[in-house]
């Protein structure tokens, strides 16, 4: 996700919230039905938090 686009492109923030939601990528979520392997609870919570907060990735090595 390009953070510079957040708050600029209409709906991007809401879309990310939807993607990060338990309903989507959580256990029993609709992405699991489609074959997604759900992350362990702690990893998923960490991922969701970083997605919502817009935490930057480490620079590629």
């Amino acid at each position, binding site marked *: *996700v*390009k*953070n*510079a*686009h957040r708050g600029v*492109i*209409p*709906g*991007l923030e*809401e*879309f990310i919230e*939807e*993607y*990060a939601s338990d309903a*989507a*990528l959580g256990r029993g979520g*609709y*992405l699991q039905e*489609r*074959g*997604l*392997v*759900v*992350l362990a609870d702690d990893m998923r919570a960490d*991922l969701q938090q*970083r*997605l919502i907060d*817009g*935490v*930057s*990735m480490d*620079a*590629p*090595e």
Partner: protein
Amino acid sequence: MSRPVIWIPRRLSAATLDRARRDYEVIVKDDDTPGTAEEIVAMSAKVDGMIPCHSEHFSAEVVARLDPRLRIVANHSVGTDHCDLPALREKGIAVTNTPGVLSDATAELAMLLMLGAARHAVTGDRLVRSGAWESWSPAFLVGKQLSGARLGIVGMGGVGRALARKARGFDMEIHYHNRRRLPADLEEGAIWHESFDTLLPVSDVLSLNCPSTPETLGLMNSDRFAQMPKGSILVNASRGSLVDEAALLAAIESGHLSAAGLDCFVTEPGGNPAFAAHENIFMMPHVGSATVKTRDAMGFKALDNLDAFFSGRQPPDLLTSATVENLQEHSHVTQTDRLDTALVVVAATAAQAQTRDAIRIVGSSTVFPYTQAVAEEFANQGGTSPVVESTGTGGGMQIFCGGIGAQHPDITGRRAPCALRVRPLRPERRDRHHRGADRLRRPVHRHLRAPTTSMGPHAQRNLPRPRPEGSGGRRVGRQPLPMWNEINADLPAIPILVYGPPPTSGTRDAFVELAMWRRLRGTRLRHLERLRRRLGRGELLGHAQDGPFVEAGENDNLIVQRLNADPNAMGIFGYSFLYENLDQLKGVNIGGVEPTPTRSRTSTTRSPARCTST
């Protein structure tokens, strides 16, 4: 003095026939079928001149049998490869053609071929026409855009230059190869390549517009196709003999060429039946010059040549062998461009890019179905439906890192961290790249399914585990085995053909990591273990490109299409793509293990068979 008698074997335009009958005694072949050798020889004793088309063949053998009465062959074509010119000259028969007047019509057809090939015209027409058009998605029939692409023109004669002018209206960058560089006023900014070999790698679309001569026979062979950019398009509105059709077929099947547009074939009429299996080959039945305006102009030119000849003057388009070689330079163009419509289309596209209000997402084709599912849910909740494109992991990252702004995507999807695969950007772009890249989020899907082997809908095949040496299996080494039954005698005796993703693809990464590398680590097969020790992981990232493994583009939809075309072929997918296409694909059972959601966990790959390797 009685009027000369001429034979017109094919149905020329009404205006041409009217004028011919006014000035000559005309014998018309009423059934409009190609004149045979016997007919040509028989008619030569009855007429003073002929107006044949490229369907009448004046081979040396035919020319030797011609009656001395025949004095001129005024061709109704610009190409003269159907005439043995030295034999005709030896016999003292004048030969003319119709240069210049076909340029615009033929160039327009070349544009049609280019657009039809680039935008899936065959598939699109079939879907609508057959009533099979039942859904739409942002990834549906996504084609190649011509604006900004590089057009390589081989032969910058009348047709080549007319094509260049039309293509400029589509904002294409024009490159050309001609034996001689054109003067600046004819070149109009096109970039000259003295060598054909430097033109090929810069041609996103390559258009053949040179005449058929002994030198250009089989001009496009497998070596030349290999020099074209991956995903490029071949257009041939000149002559079929310029192309090695087997090599073209191989380039299409391997995905090296994304499409082709052909108006001419080695065998005409009829074409090449093997091309019919590929809807990305857009074909027309050699009708490059078939417009009313051009047919009249061609007929009149042939009659102008006859008029001059029979009044004792030199025909304006008299040919000798020497002038055939200079056909490109002799051609000239008289008509003006009509590009208003095309320019309006281009302008509209540009305007859309400036005013985007939907989220734009690119990236991995494996992540694509998940992102699309979220996009659908998002739209159901009242949001504007995001535009999700399946570009492949590598392609997506390139586009994503193009910059910040409405013309650049907001999100790219990938299966696992893949920064290693991003091609380094040029220094001047690096700052911009970092402004975007340091904001990249870690991917959502670190634990998508492992790749899955799938095959076409009708095939029934299960793969047993490979057998170690000495127990009925053959050695699996660097040399690819061509047949399945050579790997294991229980498998059918059919050629191995596996379509899989290229090295920039996330699916390929996963395949190497989970199938090739991890499988080797646990293997008891002595030779594989030795291979693993000798090569290390880096070497194992490579696949042979000339064997049964065919890189089929980053977009898994292309692999689905190929499996549909060949039920005996196999493909390597992310599991989600098998799920998406269960109506068309069949998962392959390997060593008794079916590809199912629980079987394709990446984290506990103890089972041998989520994947297969050739």
